[in-house]
């Protein structure tokens, strides 16, 4: 991995981050009532008080000045105070990040371990019954609404069978490893279903493309067995198209576990987002949006690096 490639890639992300901040800033300022919308609805806040808040927050300054001020405080980590709790936004987000990372990380690992073999088998036995079954299941998985599969699993495994806890991270008064693992099963399953479905499709199509290449025929011709051809010759190239999708999905899960975390009362940042929605906690929502977007940009960079590792033509060409 060349150092200059890395630097180039990171520098290239700066205009993107700039654009994202501009879009988010515009959205919050276009809204009727602007950033002070919460206070404007509150009858106990008088117009004079509102004016004072406006001045205190610098909202009486010209919009471009406001943008620069806002951007500067975002950069130095001063993301404002949560309207709901009064605590710094950044602190609040960081304390909620742990549970989300735990849930998302385990789901991603599981998805990867299941999707890669599925995609490979499907591609290697193209047109077979196994292939069409996997394909059909993948379509079903992609079309399944997350909020509904979450409810169904809760209904079957918690309400009817009583095997698994329906919500939360741990039971009250318990917190042992096995208790925590039991609480993980349902949300991890829900989060993984859709990703397994979509990743197995990407890996299958990457594999199908690679398996028709001449060098694979050569590998067979020199007497390699199928397993070794697939794992040692084909897999590396077949993974290239899937890398970006996997990297982006990881962040989407981290920032987009909104639904799963809400249904399963998981105390992560997805739930924090919905809680902040209910309290119209704009500083918090902006902080979460900013963090989610930065995550996507970072994931893109990481995907490019993995890309370049898998395919030397990219880093040299």
């Amino acid at each position, binding site marked *: 991995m060349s150092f200059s490639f890395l630097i180039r890639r990171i520098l290239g992300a700066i205009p*993107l981050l700039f654009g994202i901040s501009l879009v988010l800033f515009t959205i919050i300022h276009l809204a009727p009532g602007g950033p002070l919308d919460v206070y404007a609805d509150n009858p106990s806040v008088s117009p004079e008080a509102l004016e004072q808040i406006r001045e205190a927050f610098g909202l009486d300054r010209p919009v471009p000045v406001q943008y620069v001020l806002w951007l500067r405080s975002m950069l130095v980590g001063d993301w404002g105070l949560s309207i709901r709790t009064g605590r710094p936004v950044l602190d609040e987000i960081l304390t909620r990040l742990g549970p989300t990372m735990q849930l998302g990380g385990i789901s991603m690992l599981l998805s990867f371990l299941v999707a890669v073999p599925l995609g490979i088998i499907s591609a290697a036995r193209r047109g077979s019954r196994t292939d069409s079954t996997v394909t059909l299941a993948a379509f079903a998985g992609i079309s399944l609404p997350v*909020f509904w599969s979450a*409810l169904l699993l809760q209904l079957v495994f918690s309400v009817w069978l009583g095997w698994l806890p329906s919500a939360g991270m741990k039971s009250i008064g318990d917190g042992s490893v096995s208790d925590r693992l039991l609480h993980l099963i349902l949300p991890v399953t829900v989060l993984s279903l859709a990703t397994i479905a979509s990743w197995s499709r990407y890996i299958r199509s990457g594999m199908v493309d690679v398996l*028709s290449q001449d060098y694979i025929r050569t590998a067979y011709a020199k007497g390699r067995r199928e397993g070794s051809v697939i794992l040692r010759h084909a897999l590396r190239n077949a993974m290239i198209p899937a890398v970006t999708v996997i990297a982006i999905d990881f*962040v989407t899960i981290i920032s987009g576990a909104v639904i799963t975390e809400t249904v399963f009362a998981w105390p992560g940042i997805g739930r924090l987002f919905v809680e902040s929605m209910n309290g119209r906690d704009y500083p918090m929502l902006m902080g979460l*949006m900013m963090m989610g977007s930065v995550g996507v940009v970072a994931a893109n960079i990481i995907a490019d690096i993995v890309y370049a590792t898998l395919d030397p033509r990219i880093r040299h060409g």
Partner: protein
Amino acid sequence: MVDLTTETLETPPQQSRRPLRQMATRFARHRLALMGLVVLTLMTLIVIVGPWLSPYAYDQQDFALIGMPGAPSAAHWLGTDELGRDAMTRLIYGGRVSLGVGLLGAVISTLVGTLIGSLAGFYRGVWDMLLMRFTDVMLSIPTLPLVLLLSTLFRPSPVLLVVIVGGLIWMGTARLVRSQFLALREREYVEAARALGAGGPRLIVRHILPNALGPITVAATLAVGSSIMLESALSFLGFGILPPVPTWGNILNSASGWLAIAPWLAIPPGLCIFFTVLAVNFVGEGLRDAMEPRG
């Protein structure tokens, strides 16, 4: 064994027919796509005709049944909700709203995506740079949280909500259309048209766009699924289209509170979303196969 030879032998003998006919034949050979089309047609018919056939209105309450969800019965096939309203009527009426949002959202996203993609791909240079950077920016902001944020900030009417949904899922289409335009604008027939004096807008609309319609149609089909999903998720979380107007998402939202007592309320709306999106995805896949036959 991986068989490398059959693939090339499978190609059917090409008959010289009109391309549309050919496409229709190829689409019809795709069984799942055909099934998807049938499901969607049926759904649309039910959703249009259903509310007239139902003896209840979607917000009509039976005061004898208020307070608790009622079990399915001869009078109420799918039971009643906690406000004493007929669940089946609400499901069908909700389908009207959900399918409508899906369709209109897809139309908007396709229009925006095609406009941005064609301008970027045709004019290249600075236009391309600006429009594609904007596309990248929109792709980087997580969609569901952004929709949620916009819906609290603007408290949208259903119509505005459709515009928001469509306005957030056009990026894939834009990239696709751009790449089509980049390839097509170099073709000789475009050069010929240019030599005959055709200007930019005419070249875009009359000459290049018709040849990019295939992939655009596929993207538009898939966008119907995305916008149904997005609206349902939003309504499920309680922020999209608000009761008493039913959508599959907000029916599921209120049913989730009664999950343990009245599971019959939560299962049908989810099944409807699932089968609709599945059907849309199959149709999209069938169209893709029909329009861009691969080896």
